[in-house]
């Protein structure tokens, strides 16, 4: 069998394969460029970008847990102006889609971000991180309230023609409600899951381990929850879903795809295996060859077929 066709379209963005970097875990792509050609990715999702520069949270920012890590990086980033003026250059020669993850504490921040990024031709799409605390709503995340999420996405939709991928928070009672609200408000695709809120305590110092007390859980530990949410959401929506949360291997990625994801993103795995993304792309191709599957699309939602 020839090299199988791994291409897929996510909300109007054409990917040559379904594996992207997860925001915040891949810097601006340069770091892993030291290990392999980043053009191998299906798409490059860069880290959370805010309107103003953010210093991030005090250390320690990382603590390991059983098969997972908690992080409290806190959106440290140099701000959207710096991104547009300085970082963007490095992408001018790139042939793969560049997706910018945007975040804020106010609706207006998201809208300003989308306005600023709309004319930037190197940017193929925006990933709207709605897990951020909504300052006006007393700090509950935008993504935990159906109405907030709807208004936020609608606001962003109004100011940009770029494809919008709305990134959902798993810290909710009913993720399908938020998913449907985002779809209705004009999202072209959904990505899930962001990190699960968690914490760890040092029993010797009798204090929380993280400088910021709470952190976001990622890695293999969260995979069953992420997979369940992808399963539930992809059953309800008609827009494509990008699955993530604990994907370490091609087998993990295939689980998400069979659950209904049209593409996947890889975060924490990069830290353990810097070649995780190319390994996963190769592994998916290998599975297709072994199982005589010509088109990647045949696999999307394969586990739902009988269900």
């Amino acid at each position, binding site marked *: 069998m020839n090299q199988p066709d791994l291409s897929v379209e996510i909300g109007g963005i054409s990917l040559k394969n379904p594996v992207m970097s997860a925001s*915040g*875990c*891949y*810097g601006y792509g340069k*770091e*892993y460029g*030291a*290990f*392999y050609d980043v053009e191998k990715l299906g798409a490059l999702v860069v*880290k959370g970008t805010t309107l103003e*520069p*953010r*210093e*991030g949270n*005090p*250390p*320690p*920012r*990382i*603590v*390991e847990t*059983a*098969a*997972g*890590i908690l*992080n409290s*990086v806190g959106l*440290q*980033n*140099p*701000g959207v102006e*710096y991104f547009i003026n*300085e970082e963007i250059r490095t992408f001018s020669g790139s042939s793969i889609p560049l997706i910018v993850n945007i975040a804020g504490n106010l609706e207006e921040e998201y809208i300003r971000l989308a306005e600023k990024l709309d004319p930037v031709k190197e940017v193929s799409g925006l990933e709207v991180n709605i897990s951020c605390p909504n300052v006006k709503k007393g700090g509950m995340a935008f993504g935990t309230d159906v109405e907030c999420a709807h208004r936020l996405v609608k606001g962003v939709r109004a100011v940009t023609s770029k494809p919008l991928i709305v990134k959902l928070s798993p810290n909710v009672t009913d993720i399908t409600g938020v998913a449907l609200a985002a779809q209705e408000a004009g999202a072209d695709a959904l990505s899930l899951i962001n990190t699960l809120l968690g914490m760890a305590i040092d029993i010797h110092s009798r204090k929380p381990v993280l400088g910021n007390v709470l952190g976001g859980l990622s*890695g*293999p*530990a969260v995979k069953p929850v992420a997979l369940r949410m992808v399963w539930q959401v992809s059953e309800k929506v008609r827009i494509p879903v990008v699955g993530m949360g604990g994907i*370490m291997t091609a087998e993990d990625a295939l689980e998400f795809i069979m659950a209904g994801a049209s593409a996947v993103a890889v975060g*924490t795995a*990069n*830290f*353990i*295996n*810097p*070649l995780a993304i190319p390994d996963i792309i190769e592994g998916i191709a290998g599975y297709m060859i072994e199982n005589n599957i010509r088109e990647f699309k045949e696999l999307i939602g394969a586990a739902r077929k009988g269900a």
Partner: protein
Amino acid sequence: MLFSSKSEIVQHQKKGPALFRIDLHAPEICGEARPGQFVHLKVEERGYHPLLRRPFSIYDLDRQEGVLSITYKVVGLGTEILSQKRQGETLEIMGPLGRPFTQWKEDQKIIMVAGGVGYAPLNFLARELLGRNIKLEVLLGARKEEELVGEEDLKAMGIAPEIAVEEGPRGFAGRVTELLKRKLEEESFHRLYSCGPCSMLKEVTRISREKSLKGEVSLESIMACGVGACLGCAFPVNEGSSESKLEVSIGESSGPKTSYQRVCVEGPTFSLEEVF
């Protein structure tokens, strides 16, 4: 391209009650590595416990043989697992990573201060400095005598380090920083290099500043990626003193303005002006 692959353990020696040295066959890393850089090791080949890699300074290099050494102390699960690896087994290793120590042509007389296994990056540096015929004095400190690292290797290089053991009975009975203070009262140096626990480095920095002695320290931090991609290893660094583009000043901090920098890329080597 950075190297990330399996390397064979060519030797694994116990050096003290909880102290080990591993020699790895990693010619790809040896070629480029500079003193002060580190490698990121995967100690568990199967399973996710521990999940993350572990960073270790390059202790020594044999470029001819392509052998890279690390010296480590068992402090938790990862180093415990590492200590059980046998010669002939392989380890996933990536590197060389991080900013090496800066070496100045004009330096003639250098002092090093190490706390325990913090001696690790200094050993490789010492070998290079001695190759350049620099006069080197080394202060080694530890709480207990068995936690001292480097004496033997320094002696083999012709250096007799001064020893400070807090709990005695060998050498100076107290902290190595006290030894440093006394030393600097008597002599002057062109440069200081230091590595050890955070509290020690803070004191070393304070003492050096008092004496206007310049130099560099090697910091530690919990790391996830080790290559600058996750921002997990951030450490507050004094502004204006570094050239990183990632600088975002930390508003609330009192004292000099600082920004969070990545220990794995902007560090682990920082100048004495940059830290604390």
